[in-house]
């Protein structure tokens, strides 16, 4: 009996150990390498060697084993038409030699891993999933300070940066010390730890990664942050507001572009030898004060709340009646220049609201005193006053047309 048990247990031990050894040797990469070598001419087989391959780049702190499976990535003459045996498209590898840049610096993923899912970063606890398709453009900005210079390669990145300004995101979000501070700073949103996004993840479908989170947030901010109503809370708790971020109604390509831009904002500091510094932007020249004011209105993100050309209508919890941000088209009628200047300088503190019983909301007109310089404020006032002149001009079309154009802008 004991003898039998002894033999059974010993046999079990050996079988399990052999199985573990077999499973350890039968990896994704061994299979891919076999598959690849079989397709080669016997003469060519010497060109590739087996085993785990790795590119070590100390400067960037990378150990990338991607070439273990992607065997032909830098050997176009051996490459096949299907993954993982394709060659790298374009001339990018000539510009960015693998030995100097490795792979994950641009493409994301877990370079050190040797299993497909883990290497592509599609596993728990790896927060840099592969930047698939056009998303890879977001990596270029890590080193290329002057994105305009490479714009034919990174159209989405350029467009995203432009959109960020056009849509007035700077009104609430800071990037590199520029912008309003009403909301979260976005300087490193492209490498934001998942731990800080967990609450949002709960409101969106899988996969729960930064890429999809940014997309979901851009498409429908309120779906991720619907707030907590009073009746869902224990007595005595204050209501939690839904996000104050307006619904911008972005088109698919706009979402993609903004996604690429936001993903490019990372906590990553490559050594200076890798970096091409940004050129200082030439000081723009404006024909009139109104033009300059319009640019200021644009640049500081006033459009984020007050909408394009100040037609108003964005949803805001704090705005007096109707919870909408006031239009600026009629400021000339209500404010003297000094009053307007004070208002821009000091912003508004939440004082009253349409529905009194609700708590103080998070969003209100911020103070711009030390952010917009005085000449720009002058220009801004000139621009805001010009809006009323426009109303007067178009009043020949009747006020309905103005309202209609505002509606279009809202949508």
């Amino acid at each position: 009996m004991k003898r039998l048990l002894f033999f059974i247990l010993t046999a079990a031990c050996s079988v399990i150990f052999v199985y573990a050894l077999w499973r350890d040797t039968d990896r994704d990469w061994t299979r891919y390498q076999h598959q690849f070598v079989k397709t080669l001419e016997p003469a060519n087989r010497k060109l590739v060697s087996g085993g785990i391959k790795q590119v070590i780049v100390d400067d960037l702190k990378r150990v990338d084993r991607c070439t273990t499976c992607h065997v032909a990535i830098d050997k176009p003459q051996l490459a096949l038409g299907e993954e993982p045996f394709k060659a790298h498209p374009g001339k990018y590898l000539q510009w960015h030699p693998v030995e100097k840049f490795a792979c994950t610096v641009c493409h994301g993923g877990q370079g050190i891993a040797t299993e497909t899912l883990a290497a592509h970063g599609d596993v728990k606890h790896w927060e840099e999933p592969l930047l698939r398709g056009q998303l890879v453009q977001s990596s270029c900005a890590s080193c290329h300070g002057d994105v305009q210079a490479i714009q034919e390669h990174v159209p989405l990145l350029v467009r995203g940066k432009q959109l960020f300004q056009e849509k007035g995101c700077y009104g609430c979000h800071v990037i590199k010390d520029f912008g309003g501070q009403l909301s979260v700073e976005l300087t490193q949103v492209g490498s934001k730890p998942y731990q800080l996004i967990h609450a949002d993840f709960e409101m969106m479908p899988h996969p729960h990664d930064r890429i999809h989170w940014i997309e979901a947030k851009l498409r429908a901010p309120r779906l991720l942050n619907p707030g907590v109503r009073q009746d869902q809370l224990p007595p005595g708790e204050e209501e939690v507001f839904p996000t104050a971020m307006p619904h911008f109604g972005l088109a698919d390509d706009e979402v993609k572009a903004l996604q690429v831009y936001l993903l490019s904002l990372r906590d990553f500091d490559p050594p200076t030898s890798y970096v091409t510094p940004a050129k200082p932007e030439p000081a723009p020249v404006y024909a009139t004060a109104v033009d300059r004011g319009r640019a200021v209105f644009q640049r500081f993100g006033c459009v984020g709340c007050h909408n394009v050309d100040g037609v108003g209508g964005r949803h805001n919890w704090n705005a007096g009646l109707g919870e909408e941000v006031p239009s600026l088209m009629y400021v000339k009628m209500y404010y003297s220049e000094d009053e307007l200047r004070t208002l821009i300088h000091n912003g508004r503190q939440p004082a009253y609201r349409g529905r009194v019983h609700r708590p103080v909301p998070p969003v209100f007109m911020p103070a711009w005193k030390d952010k917009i310089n005085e000449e720009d404020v002058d220009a801004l006032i000139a621009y805001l006053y010009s809006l009323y002149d426009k109303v007067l001009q178009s009043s020949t079309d009747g006020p309905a047309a103005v309202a209609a154009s505002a509606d279009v802008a809202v949508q």
Partner: protein
Amino acid sequence: MANPSLIANVKQQVKKTKVWKSIFRHDFSDTPRTRLQRIFGNVFLHLHPVRIAKDAIRITYTWGLGGISFYLFLLLIVTGILLMFYYRPFSAVAYQDIKDLTYAVTLGGFLRNMHRWAAHLMVIAVILHMIRVFLTGAYKPPREYNWVVGVLLLVMTLFLSYTGYLLPWDQLALWAVTVGAQMAANSPMLGNEGPFKLPFITTANDARFVMVGGTTINDATLIRFYVLHCMAVPFLLTLFLVVHFWRVRKDSFSVNTGPKVDVWPNLVSRELLAALLITVVLLVWSLALNAPLEGVANLNVTPNPSKAPWYFLGLQELLVYFDPWIAGVLLPTFIVIGLMAIPYIDINPKGLGVWPKMGKLKVGPISIPWPTERPFAVSVFMLGATMWFVLIFIGSFCRGPNWEWYWPWEVWSHRRISKMTLLNLPNIYGLALMGAYFAQALPFPKAAKDMLRAKAGEKAPAFLSAAFHMGLGFVISAAIFVPLVTEQKLFEGLGRSHNSPAVQAMYGWVHTMGPMGYGLIGALVLVSGLLLGWVGVQFAKFKDSLYEELGPIKYVIAVALLLLMMGVLGKIVLRLLFGVKYVFTLPMFNFNI
């Protein structure tokens, strides 16, 4: 096919060579003589006696738990040494080395799994071994000291496991260790955040600093834990292990009667089979489940919840009910001291070498299994052990973000907000509560009883005892309920007052029944006082006999430990049912109970 006689011939020749004879001192035929020679002729086996009582090696007596613990320790040394080839205790590369083990080293991940799971198994095996030794009374004379050594070994096993936890340098490791280090910072007197802090204690010289080797967890901590894990603690553990084994032999086995059998092959074969069985379990476990590895350690991103290693989760769960210096320092100290004290305060000679005999205890219509021979010792110890594991279970499976309660099948939500409003009992009530609680332990010595009987009649002692315990019951009950009613202003509206279940219920009564409600509350105070008093009266006789049996010193230690353990339970009830945060606070000393 070779000629069998030829093989036999070669065998004979080999056995005659000097080399063979110099290594193997005896031949291997199964004779009584060689059975003995195998044991005392072998350095590893001679720790065993040559012959042993048959009953002492019954599998259902020991379950081989001590041997299994030792085997797991050996296994951990072997896998640990192999892992050391690949691991550098330096924060810039430690995490990467673990990834390398997983992805590039042959069987590296498997090796790490084995080390990790073997460590967990060892903790379990050691704890179960302790429970077994307690239940079979194997710590009783002459083996009291060996039990103390065993408790030290348990502590060292836990510490060994805990120091190893940091080494992968991932988020799990960092924050589990942070929880532990934070408890050190809350030590009384020596911790920078603890009560009664000594005047010279700062963050740069307190207990936490000593533990993590700095004010933050960084490379210094990693090398410290590495050395402790790979060198210092294993060394100490081996030393004490040697003492532990040697004392088993010297103090002789607790079951040392009845027919004896040869250790070879009877015991050795069992040990081998147990080791094999554990190996199979461990191999399967390591194949099926990978050791966890989260993202690289980041001091700026705190996981929510941050959990300590599972064997400390019971203590972390107690953090809900107690300040860190109690849950993290005082209670573990009392647990360890209490465990060590067991053989010296349990002087009952019964139950030596047998599992407790179970009888039935009738409580009204239901009968529950109850130990007949050492009812008090067994039930108290098992209550403690059960509490330990229940708290671990709660901490592991029932606690989610913000340490909120989630059932194991519930999905965690970082959006859920629920709070129980808490209140502190005013110190005067808290003192009354604790005083009455501990006063229940006061014995009624026989001499005093006799004196009273002589002076005031036959019934006087029983009457006085009943009055005393009933009085204490009412004091406890009043000390809890009175502040709940007076401090809460029940009429102010539920939204503003306390939302613990008890207060909500009382509020409901007052609100629906008016003055009747107050009457009901009064009745509740009376009934609960009566109940508590009744429990006291029930135990009065046992308490007095225990006092006569143990004498004052042992009695005080035993009863203090027991009351502290029950006090932990009591505080949990106070918190969950009555929303009481502290029963006694001295804010200026950062001293809260």
